């Protein structure tokens, strides 16, 4: 970079000991940049030589970054989360089961023509996408486990069952961990969302995650992405996880209340 003019910062070369101090700092910066380079590049032997864990310890969390965004394969799938809730005592079974409500479509309507949307609008999309990714890696036995109800039993029981049927050893653990975390986040989110929409007394919620893919480029003028139907997977009932009063208030301010009569009498499963 050329120097345009001398600034008031101009000085002469300092004595060697002072130069050594700055050169030491420069070496640290070079080492830092080298480690960032190893982290962001595709996996390679130099990175293996340094060791993934050592590298990760340096990078995470403050220098974390990943530039394989939309690559090698760009994102081409959309996810939807649809929820319903049971309001009332589960054991007595005299409560109300609400209709299914498509939260993500509601978000889509909110972000239309909005160039600077809030990131809250991608909450269900992101959580649904994470759940869907885990589900795609799951075996039939694992899918059966997450399709079951966990109302009387806890999420820990579900985790134990998943670990028991995990057919892929350590590779499968990451997916189980991802599913359990996202299931919990989704359950918390949906409980508060359902309470804001349908009122107090939500004791269980159930969600379905839909997935659809962008039609191939060659048929882009004949088939629109929004016309592609979702393929849904329905997960079992989950015990409601209500939040604090402040948290619920935040949801109440955000969520539209259901129109009257949206709820129908239903039997607890």
């Amino acid at each position, binding site marked *: 970079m050329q120097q345009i003019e001398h600034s008031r*910062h101009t*000085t002469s070369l300092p004595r060697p000991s002072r130069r050594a101090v700055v050169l030491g*700092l420069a070496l640290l910066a070079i080492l830092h940049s080298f480690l960032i380079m190893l982290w962001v590049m*595709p996996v390679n032997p130099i990175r293996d030589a340094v060791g993934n864990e050592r590298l990760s310890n340096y990078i995470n969390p403050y220098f974390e970054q990943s530039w394989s965004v939309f690559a090698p394969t760009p994102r081409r799938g959309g996810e939807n989360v649809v929820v319903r809730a049971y309001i009332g005592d589960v054991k007595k079974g005299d409560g109300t089961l609400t209709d299914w409500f498509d939260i993500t479509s509601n978000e889509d309507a909110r972000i239309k023509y909005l160039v600077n949307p809030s990131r809250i609008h991608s909450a269900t999309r992101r959580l649904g996408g994470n759940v869907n990714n885990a589900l795609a890696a799951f075996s039939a036995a694992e899918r059966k486990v997450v399709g079951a109800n966990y109302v009387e039993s806890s999420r820990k029981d579900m985790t134990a069952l998943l670990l028991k049927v995990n057919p892929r050893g350590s590779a499968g653990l990451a997916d189980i961990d991802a599913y359990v975390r996202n299931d919990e986040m989704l359950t918390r989110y949906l409980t508060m969302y359902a309470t804001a929409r349908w009122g107090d007394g939500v004791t269980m919620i159930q969600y379905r995650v839909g997935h659809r893919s962008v039609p191939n480029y060659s048929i882009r003028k004949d088939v629109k992405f929004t016309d592609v139907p979702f393929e849904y997977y329905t997960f079992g009932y989950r015990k409601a996880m209500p939040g604090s009063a402040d*948290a619920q208030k935040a949801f109440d301010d955000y969520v539209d209340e259901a129109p009257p009569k949206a709820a129908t009498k239903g039997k607890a499963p």
Partner: protein
Amino acid sequence: MTTTPTAPQQELETPTTPSLPPRETSVVDASLDLINDWYSRAERWLFLDKHSMRGAAFARILSGLSVLGILITNFRVRDLLFGPGSEWNKPLQDSAQYAPPRLIDGLGSGAFLIFYCAVIVLAALWVLGWHVRIVGPLMLIGHVAIIERIPVLGDQGDNILRVGLFTLLFMHTSEFWSLDARRRRRTEAVDVDRRDFLPAAGAVLRNAWNGHFLVPRWLSNGVHNIAVATLAFQLVLIYIAAGMFKVQGTLWQHGTALYYPLQLQEYKPLPFLTDLFTSFGVLVGISTYVVVFTQLFFPLMMLNKITRRIAISLVLLFHVSIAILMALPWFSLSMIAFDAIWVSSSTYIAAERWLGSRLSPEKDLFWDLADPVIDRLPLPSHGR
């Protein structure tokens, strides 16, 4: 200087070669001279003056606008996203590695509102360049505290903003276009008499507050220039890594990759504009290839003045398109902010002159209105 032992032998074996003049430098000598030359150039670059101070100032302004943009965009749903309502994200909050979010753990709505507004004010002050050495770190900590409360909704824009801002903290970002520069012009550095501790400490503090030299120039120049080079290289890494991942993908190779994400609801705020773009297959193809090759060849294009301008214009166009077509304005603004470090000072000077000549009446009006207000503020910098 010594010559390599093979040199005379070669001369004997190849009598047809005209005899070399005595004391001709060998390859080794020439290489050593070259290394020496490069080394001394690098040293002079590192110490003699601060580089890219306008780029750093512009990066400060744009990165601050990006923080402001993110916080203001999410203001209405701040409780749901980052405040007490964010407890739906508890599993990730419990396992988060970041320290700053713990600052606001457990804050109620009211206290969180105060914290949130304080970070907005800090970001505005960072844009204006008001005591950047204090405001910068506080804003960064505050911003990370808020944003990393909800890692599940984060994106790469958060990462580049955090890393870039951290690097900017080591630079001298207030030499231009800042209130700090203005205060510095209006005050004079006080002599520090080292014999008396208290007056000396007072003088140092006063000089620090008014933005006069505190750290010896060799050190501050060195640190600033190292940070400039680190940020410039970080940008290169982003583009080259992104390019390398893209060339692996068949959809990128076939020039149709851009079409796919543009169809997703969250990246399609203006459907008519996107549909218009994707209806022209050639445009999709050219844009896809331009993205891949600009990223991949970004470092090479930085080596020459003309190609550098082409590359920077292309990434600018690319990020403005992402901002509008894909509804990712703050990611784009953060990228543009740090790309600014690669723009040469001569370009900034030309732009400043052009803008200055056009906007001088507005500028005069602004200071006519602002000066009386600023002069009334009870700040120590205004009594000389």
